[in-house]
């Protein structure tokens, strides 16, 4: 299975690690060069990914793509890398979009007191994410899974003097460990039944496993996927994760890491194909998350939190897509989402940067005149995420929505269409409130480039160029690759893995794809119209501050409390565990367990006191006792002899 490109794969995997180690070890000396070093190494990594394109799609020795074991833990535990169409797509996004975001960060993080540390973490994240997608076995996947969680933890808590950031980082990590633990359980099931951890072996053995077992494996794996991809009910960490710097939100909490769940389901398609109930579960959770995220998105005021909920919602789409079996549809939505969501986050970063870390859209307004570049970036991003025909988001989202119908899930199809309308509403709401009307904030948008207290200054070309580059794929990549159903370049690229989309469809839908697109577009128009009426119409703009205040006050409690999920977790799990810990630590340990030992000591002392009273200290008393004892013996033996 040796392939010419294999050393390239190893190199593209390890380069970000080298970047991380260099930035970490020599950070204080390299200072600003760290950013360029990290970006450069990721850029090379991207070029290597492009160079190994050919080998990823080759079918060598029965295994698709470049694959070779690297190191062996023990028999059956071989670690190796696998570059096939699926991991190649992820590698492109990780290194390509990653390169742009690292580049952007050079400007965004300029002047931060932990500049080098930031790039060390970013490089480490990319190494971890590449480990995740390039691994050819479940344990390697789990290793990557854990390491991206760590990188995410570091970057959420990057500004660790803020208590909120520290708490958010801990929450994200612990919830992700719940996911890791689920995946570990899946590995136990797999090893116990298949005796191998390699993807190839497991998938080959999948048809021979019982339905129950496959469902259990899928369920355990999906706990991992749900935690990582912020699916209901393990989603609460994602909005909090916005405590990290904005480029982190763009790369990790929008484009790459949170889509790992999508990757997992797409990677394990052979397992899911054997369990209809697992597919239904995943699709349902994806649909619920898409809808729930969208509904919560309508109630947010923080620009990054709006984007976070939209991310959650869009990942819901992807999970739903891969869940129903429309694998290339779900992956396509990941692909386009990575571009337009990174673009939205980076655009939001431009705004936040210029407004000195102001994130509340109520304190914005009228920015389109002051920051036209940011406005146009955000506008194209919003159009793309809403699925306006022609933009990339349109093609991938339609593929997902229509896939639900094709695979016989009309309810999920309906939920998706409703969600599309809500998405349009809250995305345009964000755009209108932040960019239209009159400026409502106190901080003056800063374009002069003067140093502020955090050392931030107006975005320079370092920040604008990557955003501009991202606009291109987020507008055009969908039309270029995903147009044409079974014959689109996208479907043909994935055909060796999954076959063509229509060949797997189990239902001939009563509604054609064209009609679906039309219906989705109409709901999007409706969402847009409501947002326009409420926030952008002449009347709404006239008394915008009062309206926004009123809306804030009247926001339903169920939305401001985020459906009470955090509350329930706190009451049902966190506090009982703490109470139990206090009970064990303050009562059981000192009073019950140690108390038992102390009781032993007490009775030993009591016995001692009793025996002490015989020790009078009178020699003659001792003699008397001695004689009495001897007399007893004599009497006993005399009587015994007499009886005999």
């Amino acid at each position, binding site marked *: 299975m040796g392939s010419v490109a294999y050393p390239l794969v190893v190199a593209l995997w390890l380069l970000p690690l080298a970047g991380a180690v260099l930035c970490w070890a020599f950070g204080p000396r390299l200072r600003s060069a760290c950013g360029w070093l990290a970006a450069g190494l990721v850029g090379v990594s991207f070029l290597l990914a492009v160079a190994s394109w050919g080998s990823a799609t080759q079918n060598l020795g029965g295994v698709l793509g470049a694959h070779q074991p690297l190191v062996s833990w023990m028999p059956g535990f071989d670690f190796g890398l696998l570059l096939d169409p699926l991991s190649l797509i992820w590698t492109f996004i990780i290194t390509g979009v990653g390169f742009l975001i690292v580049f952007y960060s050079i400007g965004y993080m300029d002047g931060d007191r932990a500049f080098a540390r930031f790039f060390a973490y970013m490089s480490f994240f990319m190494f971890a994410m590449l480990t995740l997608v390039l691994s050819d076995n479940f344990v390697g996947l789990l290793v990557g899974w854990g390491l991206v969680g760590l990188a995410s933890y570091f970057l959420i808590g990057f500004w660790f003097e803020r208590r909120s950031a520290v708490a958010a980082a801990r929450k994200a990590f612990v919830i992700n460990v719940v996911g890791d633990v689920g995946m570990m359980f899946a590995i136990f099931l797999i090893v116990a039944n298949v005796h191998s951890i390699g993807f190839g072996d497991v998938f080959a053995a999948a048809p021979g496993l019982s339905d129950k077992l496959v469902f259990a494996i899928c369920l355990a794996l999906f706990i991992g996927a749900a935690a990582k991809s912020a699916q209901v009910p393990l989603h609460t960490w994602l909005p909090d994760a916005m405590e990290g710097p904005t480029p982190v939100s763009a790369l990790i909490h929008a484009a790459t890491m949170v889509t790992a769940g999508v990757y997992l389901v797409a990677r394990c398609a052979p397992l899911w194909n054997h369990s209809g109930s697992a597919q239904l579960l995943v699709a349902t959770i994806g649909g619920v998350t898409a809808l729930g995220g969208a509904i919560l998105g309508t109630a947010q005021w923080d620009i990054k939190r709006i984007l976070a909920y939209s991310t959650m919602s869009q990942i819901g789409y992807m999970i739903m897509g891969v869940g129903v079996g429309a694998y290339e549809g779900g992956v396509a939505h990941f692909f386009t989402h990575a571009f337009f969501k990174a673009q939205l986050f980076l655009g939001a970063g431009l705004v936040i940067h210029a407004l000195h870390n102001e994130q509340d859209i109520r304190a914005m307004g009228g920015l389109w005149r002051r920051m036209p570049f940011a406005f146009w970036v955000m506008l194209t991003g919003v159009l793309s995420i809403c699925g306006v025909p022609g933009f990339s988001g349109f093609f991938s989202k339609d593929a997902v929505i229509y896939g639900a119908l094709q695979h016989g899930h009309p309810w999920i199809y309906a939920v998706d269409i409703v969600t599309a309308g809500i998405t349009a509403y809250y995305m345009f709401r964000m755009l209108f409130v932040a960019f239209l009307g009159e400026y409502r904030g106190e901080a003056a948008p800063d374009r002069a480039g003067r140093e502020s207290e955090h050392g931030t200054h107006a975005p320079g070309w370092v920040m604008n160029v990557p955003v501009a580059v991202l606009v291109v794929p987020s507008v055009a990549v969908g039309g270029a690759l995903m147009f044409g159903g079974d014959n689109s370049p996208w479907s043909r690229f994935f055909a060796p893995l999954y076959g063509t989309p229509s060949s797997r469809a189990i239902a001939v839908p009563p509604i054609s794809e064209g009609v679906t697109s039309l219906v989705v577009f109409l709901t999007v128009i409706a969402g847009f119209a409501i947002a326009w009426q409420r926030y952008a119409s002449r009347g709404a703009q006239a008394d915008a501050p009062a309206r926004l205040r009123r809306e804030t006050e009247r926001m339903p409690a169920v939305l401001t409390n985020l459906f009470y999920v955090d509350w329930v977790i706190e009451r049902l799990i966190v506090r009982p565990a703490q109470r139990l810990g206090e009970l064990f630590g303050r009562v059981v340990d000192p009073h019950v367990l140690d108390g038992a030992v102390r009781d032993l000591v007490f009775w030993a002392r009591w016995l001692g006191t009793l025996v002490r009273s015989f*020790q*009078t*200290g*009178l*020699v*003659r008393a001792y*003699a*008397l006792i001695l004689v009495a004892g001897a007399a007893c013996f004599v009497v006993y033996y005399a009587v015994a002899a007499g009886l005999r």
Partner: protein
Amino acid sequence: MPVPTGHYVALAAVIFFIGVLGVIVRRNPLIMLMSIELMLNAGNLLLVAFARAWLQNAGQIFAFIVITVAAAEAAIGLAIIVTTFRPARFVDVDDVRSLHG
């Protein structure tokens, strides 16, 4: 005509009980030490008597060992008595109770 062994045993018993009584009743440590010597010698008498009765030397040899031990004991006992009662006027074992529990 040899004296029957039973007589020796009876004599030894009498001597032994005189010794026991002495230890229990008297409070003068010197007298108590002498009473202990009496008990030991009652034992010696038995050892010698039975050695004679069964015609085995071991008992006689053992009697010598007992005498040696008794001598050592008397020496140590007297030393203890002297050191213990040197500061006191009266010689009374009941006054020495520092080992009480």
